[in-house]
C-alpha cells in the first residue's frame, strides 16, 4: 500500500478539473487523510488551461511538491502547458482522455515513457451515463476513487447532495457516471500496492480550507472588527471571507478606493479603539508603506497581511515567492521597527494571525504577516484546532488615575504607554505623524526625538526572547542546521524527514518571527553547527541576509534560494544535506552548492 500519493489533473477550463480535485480532497479530509491541493491556471480570466495537484497521505503533508504518482490529462496541450508544475516520471500512472487520439505508447511527453498508461473515454462515459459531458469530473472522481481506494462513499453522498436540487434524474445520472468510473477500474485493475493505505487517524475528519480563509477566520477569532482593503491577487479572499462574516460581530469591511485608503481607514479604526486589519500583496504593500510608518510613530495597533507573490512590480501575481521580507522589515523612512511574522502552512496561519493581533495590541504597533500565494490559495486538511489554547490580548488602556493629566506617550519602563481612544473622558490627545512629547504635542527637539525612538525600539526587546515563536526540529546537537520559513519550511521539513530516515544528523529551525531578528535564538542554534543552509524561495535569500546583518553566522552557512514559481523539492535539499555530511566527514573545505551567495 502507498502512504503518500501525488495526483495531477489538467484540462481546459470547464473540464471540471478543479471540482474533481475538490471532491477528492474533501473525501480524503472526511476520511481522516492528510492532504494538500494546489491549483494553477493560465492567465485567462475564464477558460484557458486549468490544473490541480493533490497530495494525499497517511501522515502530515508538509508540502505539495514532488513528481506525480498519477497524472490525469483531459487534453495534452493543456497538460503540457503546466510543465514543471506537473512532472511526469517513468513510475507515474498516466490516465488520459481517449478522444485525444493519442496512442498509449506515444504520449506527447518528452524523454519519459510511463510504464502504466490508461486511455479512458472520459467524455463518452460522462455523456453515456449522465447524459452530459459536464459530468467528466464525476467520471474522473470515480476513476481515482476506484484505483486508489479513496472516498467512494463520501463522494457518492456528495454527488447526491450536490445535485439534489436538480432532481432525481440528474442525481442518478451522476451516480451512474461515478459508478462507470469505478467499474472501469475494476475492469482495468492496478496492483494493490498502488492504493493509498487507510488513514492512521482512524478516520477522524479534519478541517479543510485555504490560507486566506484561515487567516480571515483567525482575525474574527482574535476580535478584529474592522477591515479596510483593496482587491489584489492573491490576497483578496481574505476580504471576501470577512465581508461574509465580520458584520455579524458588529464589524465592518470597507472596500476602499485604493490601497492607501484601505490601510488609512484601518489606522483610523485603530485610533478609534478597534482591532483592525488590512490585507494585500506586493504592489499594494508598496503603496501602504507611508501609512504603516504613521502607525509606527503614532503607536497604533494594526495587522497588515501581505500575501507574497513574485515581484517586483506586477511580477508574478499568481505564483508564490518569499521576496517581500526586506520590504516588510525595512520599507519605512526614518528609524522604524515593526514585527514581521510568517506562517508555514494553512494550519499555522491561524496561530500566526492571532499572534499578530496580540503583538499589535500589546506593543501598539503595526504587525506584518508574510503569507504567500501557496499558503493563501492551497486547500489543506487541518487537524481540529483547540481555540481555547489561544490567549487574546487587548491593548493596555489607561486606568482612571492615568487619565488625570493623561500622557498618551508616557515614558514607561516597558516603553508601552496606556492608550486611550475617542469617547474616553480625559483621554483626549493629539495623535500625529509628527514627532511628539509624552503628551502628544508636536516637537522639534532632538533630545525628545532620540528618547521617543529609544522608547519605540526598546518596547520590542522582550519580543526577541519569544522562543515559542520558533520551532527546532531534528537532532539538537546535529552538525548540520537548516533554516527555512513560510511555505518553503514545509519542503525543509520533508527534507529533514528524509535525511533522518537515512540516518543523517540534521536539525531545522523554523521561525514564525522573522523580524526583529532574535539574535540569541540563531546564535544558540548555530553554536553546534559546522554547516548550515537557509532554504528560501527568493533570488536574494532575504532571511539569510537579514539574519547575517544581525548575527555572526559560521562561514559554512549558505543559502539555497530560488526565484518564485520554481518549486524547491525536498529531494534537492536532501541532496545538499548529503553533500554537507560528506564535506564534514572528509573535513574538506568544499562548500555546499548554493544557487546564490
Amino acid at each position: 500500500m502507498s502512504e503518500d500519493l501525488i495526483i495531477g489533473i489538467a484540462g481546459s477550463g470547464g473540464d471540471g478539473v478543479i471540482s474533481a480535485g475538490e471532491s477528492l480532497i474533501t473525501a480524503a479530509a472526511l476520511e481522516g487523510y492528510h492532504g494538500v491541493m494546489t491549483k494553477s491556471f493560465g492567465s485567462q480570466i475564464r477558460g484557458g488551461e486549468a490544473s490541480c495537484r493533490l497530495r494525499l497521505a497517511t501522515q502530515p503533508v508538509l508540502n505539495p511538491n514532488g513528481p506525480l504518482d498519477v497524472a490525469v490529462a483531459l487534453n495534452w496541450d493543456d497538460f503540457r502547458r503546466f510543465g514543471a508544475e506537473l512532472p511526469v516520471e517513468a513510475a507515474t500512472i498516466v490516465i488520459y482522455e481517449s478522444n485525444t487520439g493519442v496512442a498509449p505508447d506515444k504520449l506527447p511527453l518528452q524523454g519519459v515513457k510511463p510504464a502504466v498508461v490508461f486511455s479512458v473515454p472520459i467524455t463518452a462515459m460522462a455523456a453515456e451515463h449522465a447524459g452530459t459531458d459536464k459530468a467528466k469530473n464525476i467520471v474522473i472522481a470515480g476513476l481515482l476513487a476506484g484505483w486508489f481506494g479513496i472516498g467512494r462513499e463520501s463522494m457518492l453522498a456528495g454527488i447526491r447532495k450536490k445535485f439534489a436540487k436538480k432532481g432525481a434524474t440528474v442525481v442518478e445520472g451522476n451516480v451512474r457516471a461515478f459508478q462507470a468510473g469505478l467499474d472501469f477500474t475494476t475492469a482495468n485493475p492496478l496492483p494493490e500496492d498502488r492504493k493509498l493505505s487507510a488513514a492512521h487517524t482512524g478516520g477522524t475528519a479534519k478541517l479543510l480550507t485555504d490560507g486566506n480563509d484561515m487567516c480571515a477566520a483567525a482575525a474574527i477569532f482574535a476580535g478584529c472588527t474592522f477591515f479596510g482593503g483593496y482587491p489584489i491577487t492573491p490576497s483578496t479572499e481574505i476580504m471576501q471571507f470577512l465581508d461574509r462574516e465580520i458584520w455579524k460581530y458588529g464589524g465592518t469591511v470597507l472596500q476602499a478606493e485604493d490601497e492607501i485608503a484601505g490601510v488609512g481607514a484601518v489606522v483610523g479604526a485603530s485610533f478609534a479603539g478597534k482591532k483592525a486589519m488590512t490585507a494585500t500583496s506586493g504592489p499594494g504593500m508598496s503603496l501602504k508603506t507611508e501609512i504603516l510608518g504613521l502607525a509606527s510613530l503614532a503607536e497604533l495597533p494594526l495587522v497588515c497581511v501581505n500575501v507574497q507573490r513574485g515581484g517586483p512590480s506586477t511580477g508574478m501575481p499568481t505564483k508564490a515567492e518569499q521576496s517581500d521580507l526586506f520590504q516588510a522589515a525595512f520599507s519605512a523612512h526614518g528609524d522604524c521597527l515593526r514585527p514581521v511574522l510568517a506562517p508555514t502552512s494553512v494550519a499555522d496561519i491561524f496561530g500566526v494571525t492571532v499572534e499578530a493581533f496580540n503583538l499589535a495590541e500589546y506593543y501598539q504597533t503595526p504587525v506584518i504577516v508574510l503569507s504567500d500565494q501557496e499558503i493563501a490559495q492551497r486547500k489543506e486538511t487541518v487537524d481540529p484546532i483547540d481555540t481555547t489554547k489561544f490567549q487574546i490580548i487587548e491593548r493596555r488602556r489607561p486606568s482612571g488615575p492615568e487619565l488625570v493629566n493623561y500622557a498618551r506617550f508616557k515614558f514607561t519602563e516597558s516603553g508601552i504607554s496606556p492608550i486611550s481612544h475617542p469617547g474616553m473622558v480625559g483621554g483626549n490627545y493629539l495623535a500625529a505623524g509628527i514627532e511628539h512629547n509624552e503628551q502628544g504635542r508636536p516637537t522639534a527637539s532632538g533630545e525628545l526625538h532620540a528618547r521617543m525612538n529609544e522608547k519605540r525600539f526598546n518596547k520590542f526587546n522582550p519580543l526577541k526572547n519569544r522562543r515559542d515563536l520558533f520551532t527546532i526540529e531534528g537532532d539538537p546537537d546535529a552538525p548540520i542546521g537548516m533554516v527555512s520559513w513560510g511555505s518553503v519550511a514545509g519542503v525543509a521539513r520533508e527534507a529533514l524527514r528524509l535525511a533522518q530516515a537515512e540516518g543523517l544528523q540534521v536539525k531545522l529551525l523554523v521561525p514564525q518571527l522573522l523580524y526583529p531578528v532574535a539574535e540569541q535564538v540563531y546564535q544558540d542554534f548555530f553554536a553546534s553547527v559546522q554547516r548550515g543552509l537557509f532554504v528560501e524561495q527568493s533570488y536574494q535569500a532575504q532571511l539569510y541576509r537579514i539574519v547575517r546583518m544581525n548575527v555572526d553566522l559560521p562561514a559554512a552557512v549558505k543559502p539555497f534560494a530560488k526565484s518564485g514559481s520554481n518549486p524547491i523539492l525536498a529531494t534537492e535539499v536532501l541532496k545538499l544535506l548529503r553533500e554537507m555530511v560528506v564535506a564534514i566527514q572528509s573535513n574538506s573545505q568544499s562548500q555546499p552548492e548554493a544557487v546564490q551567495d
Partner: protein
Amino acid sequence: MTTLEAPTKPLSLTKFQAGDFKSDLKPIWCPGCGDFGVVTAITRALANLGRPPHEIAFVSGIGCSSRIPGYTTAYGFNTVHGRSLPIAQGIKLANPELLVLVASGDGDGFSIGGGHVAHVIRRNIDITYIVMDNQIYGLTKGQLSPTSSRGRKTVTSSFGSLEEPVNPLLYVMGYGANYVAQGTPADMVGLGKIIEEGIRYPGFAFINVQSPCVTYGMEDQQLKAHKTNMQSLEALGHDTSDRAKATELAREYGTKLYTGVLYRNPNPPATYGQGVTERQEALKKTAVPRHEILNRFKPSN
C-alpha cells in the same frame, strides 16, 4: 475574551464655551493667517453643538491648515499628506457615535488627496470636511497649488502656471455632495454658521473656506479684499435646495466669492453608517461564537 469599554458619559448637556475647545498649544501660523479665524469659527460651532471634546475626533493631513486639530481639545489625529479622509472614514465607521471633523487645505485636499474626495461623497459618510483654500502651498513656502489661477507666478511656476485650477465647489457638486458651503474668516458669523450647520447635516458635508495666506497669498485674496468682494448667497436670495442653480454658482469659483450654503439637499439620503448599522443588526443573530468560527471549515462533500 474581554473588550474593555471606554468610560464614556452620555451626551453632555453642559453648556460649552468656544474656549472649552481651544487647546493651549500656540499655533505656528503667521500673524494674520486666515486659519486663526477658522479655528475660532470651528470652536464656536462646537460650543453651540454641545458635544463634549472627548466625543469629537478631529482629523487632518499635512499643511498649515492641518495643524488645526492640535489647537483644539478634541481627540486629534494629524495624519499624513492627503490621507485625512480615509482615516476619518475609518474612525467614523469604527465608532459611529463620534463627531468626526476633517481639516484640510487646497493642496492636501485637492491635489495629493484629491482622489479620496469622490469616494467619501459617493459613500455619504457622515463627516464634515473643512478645506482651507488659500490657492498656495504655504507650509513649504509658496509653491503652486491646485487652486492657483492659470498664469500665476510662484517659485515653482517662475514663468506662470500653465494649468487650469481645480474648482473645489464644482468638484464636490459633480460627485453629488449633499451639503456644500463656502465661507471666509472675513465673515466670522457666517463661517461659524455654515460649519455648525455642516456638522449638523446628516451625511457628508463640504465647506470650502477662503482662508488667505498672508505671506504668499495674492493681495486680492486677502481678508480685506474678501470684505469688499464677498456676496452672501442668502442676501442674494439663493435657494439652497436648487442643485442646478448651485452648480451654476459653483462655476463662478475663482471669479466670484459667494459665501453661505450653496447646496443643501433638503431630503438627506441614508448615510453609509446607517447601512452598516442595519446590516450589523440584521446579521448579528447569525453569528457563531468567535471561538467556533473554524467550524466553517468542516468538510462536506
